[in-house]
């Protein structure tokens, strides 16, 4: 069935991602490598970082970024190097340029707006009582709510 086939390619084998043979001897450099690889997306899998993914391409990318680190690149240079080759698709944290401004600032803006509206609602002079209720209905309602 098609969906089974799809799952087979989607769910990269959930075994091991980082293999002991890839690990750098320098623990500081290795730590940086892990940090970077957790922020890079496996190009052929679905929504997995290359740190988690077991796909061959992820392994190559992990090795490649470690080579760049050994060559003395900064973290940013390593990321730029990979983005130049695979596109910004590989960045799990989208940058803040261009239209991505909307992505990053939509929620803070909405929060401020919501707080302003909330404040207005709280300070609003209330209308007195529900005009749609008759006196008996209101008494009934109070009886129910007090039970």
């Amino acid at each position, binding site marked *: 069935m098609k969906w089974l086939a799809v799952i087979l390619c989607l769910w990269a084998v959930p075994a091991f991602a980082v293999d002991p043979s890839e690990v750098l001897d320098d623990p500081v450099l290795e730590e940086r490598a892990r940090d970077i690889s957790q922020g890079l997306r496996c190009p052929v899998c*679905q929504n997995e970082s290359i740190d988690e993914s077991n796909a061959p391409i992820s392994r190559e990318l992990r090795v490649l970024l470690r080579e760049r680190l050994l060559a003395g690149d900064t973290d940013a240079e390593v990321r730029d190097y990979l983005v130049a080759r695979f596109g910004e698709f590989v960045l799990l944290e989208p940058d803040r340029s261009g239209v991505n401004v909307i992505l990053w600032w939509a929620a803070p803006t909405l929060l401020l707006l919501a707080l302003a509206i909330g404040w207005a609602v709280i300070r609003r002079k209330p209308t007195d009582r529900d005009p749609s209720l008759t006196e008996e209905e209101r008494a009934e309602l109070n009886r129910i709510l007090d039970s």
Partner: protein
Amino acid sequence: MFIELAHFALILALVVALAQTVVPMVGAARGWRGWMTFAEPAATSQLILISFSFAVLTWAFVVSDFSVELVYANSHTAKPMLYKISGVWGNHEGSMLLWVLILALFGAFAAWFGSNLPATLRARVLAVQGSISVAFLVFILFTSNPFVRIAVPPLNGRDLNPLLQDPGLAFHPPFLYLGYVGLSMTFSFAVAALIEGRVDAAWGRWVRPWTLAAWMFLTVGIALGSWWAYYELGWGGFWFWDPVENASFMPWLIAAALLHSAIVVEKRETLKSWTILLAILAFGFSLLGAFIVRSGVLTSVHAFANDPERGMLILLILGVYLGGALTLFAARAGVMQSHGAFGTVSRESALVLNNILLAVSAFVVFIGTIWPLVAEMVFGRTLSVGPPFFDAAFTPFMVLLAIALPLGSLLAWKRGKLGRAKGPLVGLVVLSVALALLAYAVYAGRSMVGPAGVALGVWVVGGAVLDLWMRAGRGPVGDRLRRLVRLPRGDWGKTVAHLGMGVTIFGIAAMTAWNVEDIRAVNIGESYDVDNYNVTLTSVDAVKGPNYDSTMAVLTISHNGGTPFILTPEKRFYPVAQMPTTEAAIQNGILRDVYVVIGDPQANGGYAVRVYIKPFANWIWGGAILMSLGGLISLTDRRLRIAVGARKQSTVPAE
């Protein structure tokens, strides 16, 4: 023949649902009592018909009837019985059938237990619920028929995806659907109230049990999924901000907001239009979730049934229901005037803040989830939005929420002062900070997330306990304890749920900050130390399972030279599906989990072994269990049960 009967029953259910939509709605509009009461037998027979369909499909899976295409594609004779049954909903068609079954179940419950709702409201609620059934039954019958036969039945099936053959995942979808579909009930109540033209305190009280139930199931469903990901996917993560996870998280956040705002409607007759809007949006997000999971427009590890045509139909359902409800909402905004007045500092204001934070945080998840789609379609940028974005953009809202929670819950209605809670609260702040400093000292040099999580966790948990204690009134401790026991269940539910929230916050922060990881190639017989644990790879054996072959490692582990325990992580291979899986072995503990995974054989002999020490991992799910338990306790509150029959039937609105 039963398969054909089941298919026929499903068609009949569609007819019944159509009648359930039209007849009571007309009856309510015209005031014809007979037409209104039609809703109840209709809801009951709909449930009976769909149950029959579902039972037959389950039977086909149990006896491995491979003349049914769905069974052939998702089952195998060698599969354990539990997974034969869970295989019914481990695929698109079967899970849609489960969806409508639950839809009918909720409708029937509303019919059976809503006998004291005003007749017109009940008729309209059931009619709206029926119309949702119509949409999904049409969807199943025309695009996803589970009862398609194969002319020449194969000898054996193609097996269920091995990753789904797991007890955690067997029960994850039913709970999730109970939550998703439970929100259809609040939607029906909201739309019915809008048609009816009145939203009052009694409405707030009626809609709350349904919201509570849906939220509770959703909590359990999400927690099960996250727990499964933790022990099954083999790298010890518990949340990946995957589109499909987000799809379940958004309705959860909105339902949590709705839960709180419905209290305000009930107690204070204000925030009405907002509450109605939330009730509509909550189900809207449920439908959006269904769209995300089943259309494949967003790439996800969970991709389930990627079919654009089905996606379009769900999008159509989403558009019609959400658009229709929102239009109705705009047209009827006038009837939802608020009446209760409250001070700037009051429980009402605190709940407004709670709602703002929950709703905006749901929006963060929403925009992050759909942004790759928008960016590509509108702006031509192919990009990804992953965990780093959500961690950065979502977490602040939860931090604010946690800070505000104890303060808000201690405020009184109308005009609040912290009053006599002030002293204990200052003490609680000191305690939180002190414990955070202690954590900082113990885990020196580690991420600040840990101490921050400790402070927030202690603050929220302490706040919840303090809240309950203050409710017990004044006087000697003995009297207070006696009063504590007699407090309404709702108060206990609130405390337990808030406690759970604090526990989960702490668990997530602790596990994120203090996780220890060790990856290395290990030879058989080799021994090494990770943190305070001594690990020995004793042996690696080939083992045969019921429907898989396993490479099982035996690791002997001891803590600080104490009594050793044995963990047996496996790599399994499922020959039918031609798919390997990793089975992590975990020694669960209250303070930490020891989590080991066995990897591939290494070139120079030995095996890759990954060992994690995950501190306080179980607190994450423990907190989720407490949260849903809090919901359950609240649900048993006498006031809610009475509320089911609260408003008198005589209040039939004027035409």
